[in-house]
C-alpha cells in the first residue's frame, strides 16, 4: 500500500473554549465547598458548624460568577432568556436541564444560609438536603453535557459525571482548606477556626484522591483498549498535545503529589495539609482543561 496524504481540508473550530473549562471548575469547587457547609447542619457533625457560613458564601460567590461567564460566552448573550421560556425549552437538550439547575442551586443555597443565620435547625436541614442534591446535580450535569456527544470519543464515557463529581469533592475541600488557612492568618486567636478541621478535611481528600485516581485509571483503560479514535485521543491528544494539563497538572501535581503528602508525616503539618489542598484545587482545573479542550481537539482536523 502506497502512502496517502491529505493535501487540502477545511478546518474547524473547537467550539467550547477556556471559559467552559473555568465554568466547570467553578461549579465543581462550589459544590464541594457547599458539601462542607452542610457537614454541621445537615449531617450533624457539630464541630463543622463554625465553617458553615464561610463555606456557603464561598460556594454562592463562585456560582454567581457562572452566569456571567456563560452568558457572555453565548453568541447572542441576550437570548439566554430563551433557555427559560417554555416554548423554547427542549427537554432532551442537556443544557436545558443545566440552566434550570444553575438557577435553582444558588437560590436553594441562599435559602439554606438564611435558615442557618436564623438558627432554624429543621428548615436548615431540609433546605440543606435540597441544596446538596441540586449541588451534586449541577455538577453531574457538567459531566453529562460533555458525555452526551457520541462523536467526541474522549468525552463519551459514563465515567464523566463521576469524574466531575469526585473532582468537585476534592477541589471544593482543597479550596476550603486554603480559604480557612488564609482567614486564620488574619484573625485573632479566639476568632480562628480550629486548625484541626483543616487536617481532618485534608484526610477526607485522601479518599477522593484515591477514587479519582481509580476513575482516571478506568478511563485510561477504556481509551487504550478502545477504538482507533480513543487510542489516538489518548496517545496523541492527551499524552502529547495536552501532556502538561493531563499528565503533569492533573496526575502528578493534582493527585500523586498531594496523595504522597497526605499519607506521609507531612500531613500533620499545616504547610503539608495546605500545600496538598492547593495542589488538588489546581490539579482539578487541569482536568477540566484536557477534558473540555482535548475532547474536541482531534475532530477539528476532520
Amino acid at each position, binding site marked *: 500500500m502506497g502512502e496517502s496524504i491529505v493535501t487540502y*481540508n477545511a478546518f*474547524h*473550530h*473547537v467550539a467550547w473554549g477556556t471559559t467552559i473549562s473555568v465554568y466547570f471548575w467553578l461549579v465543581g469547587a462550589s459544590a464541594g465547598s457547599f458539601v462542607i457547609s452542610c457537614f454541621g447542619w445537615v449531617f450533624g457533625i457539630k464541630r463543622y458548624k463554625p465553617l458553615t457560613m464561610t463555606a456557603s458564601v464561598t460556594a454562592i460567590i463562585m456560582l454567581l460568577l457562572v452566569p456571567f461567564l456563560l452568558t*457572555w460566552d453565548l453568541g*447572542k448573550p*441576550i437570548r439566554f432568556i430563551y433557555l427559560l421560556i417554555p416554548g423554547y425549552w427542549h427537554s432532551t437538550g442537556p443544557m436545558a436541564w443545566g440552566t434550570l439547575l444553575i438557577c435553582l442551586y444558588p437560590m436553594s443555597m441562599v435559602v439554606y444560609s438564611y435558615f442557618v443565620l436564623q438558627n432554624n435547625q429543621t428548615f436548615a436541614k431540609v433546605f440543606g438536603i435540597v441544596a446538596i442534591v441540586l449541588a451534586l446535580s449541577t455538577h453531574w450535569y457538567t459531566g453529562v453535557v460533555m458525555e452526551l456527544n457520541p462523536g467526541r470519543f474522549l468525552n463519551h464515557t459514563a465515567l464523566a459525571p463521576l469524574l466531575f463529581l469526585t473532582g468537585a469533592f476534592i477541589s471544593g475541600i482543597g479550596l476550603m482548606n486554603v480559604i480557612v488557612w488564609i482567614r486564620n492568618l488574619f484573625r485573632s486567636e479566639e476568632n480562628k477556626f480550629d486548625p484541626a478541621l483543616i487536617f481532618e478535611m485534608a484526610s477526607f481528600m485522601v479518599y477522593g484522591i484515591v477514587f479519582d485516581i481509580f476513575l482516571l485509571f478506568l478511563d485510561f483503560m477504556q481509551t487504550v483498549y478502545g477504538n482507533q479514535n480513543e487510542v489516538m485521543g489518548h496517545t496523541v491528544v492527551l499524552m502529547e498535545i495536552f501532556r502538561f494539563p493531563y499528565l503533569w497538572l492533573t496526575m502528578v501535581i493534582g493527585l500523586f503529589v498531594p496523595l504522597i503528602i497526605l499519607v506521609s508525616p507531612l500531613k500533620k503539618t499545616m504547610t503539608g495539609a495546605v500545600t496538598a489542598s492547593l495542589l488538588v484545587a489546581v490539579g482539578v482545573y487541569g482536568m477540566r482543561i484536557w477534558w473540555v479542550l482535548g475532547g474536541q481537539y482531534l475532530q*477539528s*482536523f*476532520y
Partner: protein
Amino acid sequence: MAIQEPQQKEPRSFGLQTPGTKGVIGKKRYAMVIDLRKCIGCMSCSIACKTEYGLPLGVWRTWVKVMEKGGYPVTKRIFMPRLCNHCDYPVCVRNCPTQATYKHEDGFVLQRYNRCIGCRTCMVACPYNARHLLPEKRTDDKLPRMVVDKCTFCIHRVKKGLVPSCVQACVGGARIFGDLNDPNSEVHKLVSTETVTVLKPELGTSPSVYYVGADWEIMDEPHSYTNRTAQSKAEFNDFKEYHNGDAFADIKEGENLMAEVGKNWVGYLKTIPHKAKETFQAFKIFLFD
C-alpha cells in the same frame, strides 16, 4: 433499498421533532448521493454554496477534502465532498437546548437563526463538523451574526422543484439529489444498486449523504490528523490565527499549550464589549421602539 412499513417505535427518535422517515411509505426523505468516481475536485460545489448564501471567509457549508495516494509514477488524487449529513437521528437536534435546530418532516435538518443563542452545543454534538458559527463582522449588518449556521440541502430551492445549488453546479454530475423514498428517483436507484457508504456509520446517526466509491482513508478521522502535508499543517495554524476569536479554543500546533489557553481566555474577554453593546442596543429597542 426496500420501502418498509412505518416503524411505530424508534428509540433513537427521542428529542426529534419528527421521527426518521427513511424507507417509510407515504413520507419524503430527501438525500444526496455523491459519486466519487465522477468528482474531479473542481470545488464548484463549494463556490456555488458560498455564493448562494454569501458565506464569509473561514466557514463552509460544503467543502472538498483532497488526498493524494500512491507513489510516483502511480499516484491518484482523491476527493471527498463534505456537507451536513441531514441525519435521520441527528445528535445536534437532540442536544439543542432551544430547538433552534430541528428536523423537518421531509428529512432536512434545519437551523432557525431567530431561536439560536449561539451556545454551540450543536457544533460540539455534530460528529461531521458540519456546523459553524457565523462571525461577528459581516459585509451586511442585516445578515445573521454569532448564530450557528449549516447546510440546509437548499430547502428554498427544493421546495420550488429545483435541486440544491451544489448539485446544480457540479460539472461532473457527481452529486445527485432526490427523494430516497421514491422508488423512481435516481438516488433511490443508486442507493439500491451501488455499493454505497456513509460517514461514521457506527454512531447510528443514519446519515442521508451516501458516497459511491469512497476511499476508507479519506473517510477516517484519525487519518486526517496523522497524514497531512506540511502545507496543510501551516494552513491549520493560519486558520487558527486569522479566524479565531469568539471564545473558540483555537490551539495552534507547535505552540505552548497553556499560552494558547491563556490567549483563548483573552479572546473571550475581548468579545465582551461588543456583545455588551449589542445587548444594550437590544434592550433599548425593546424598551423604546
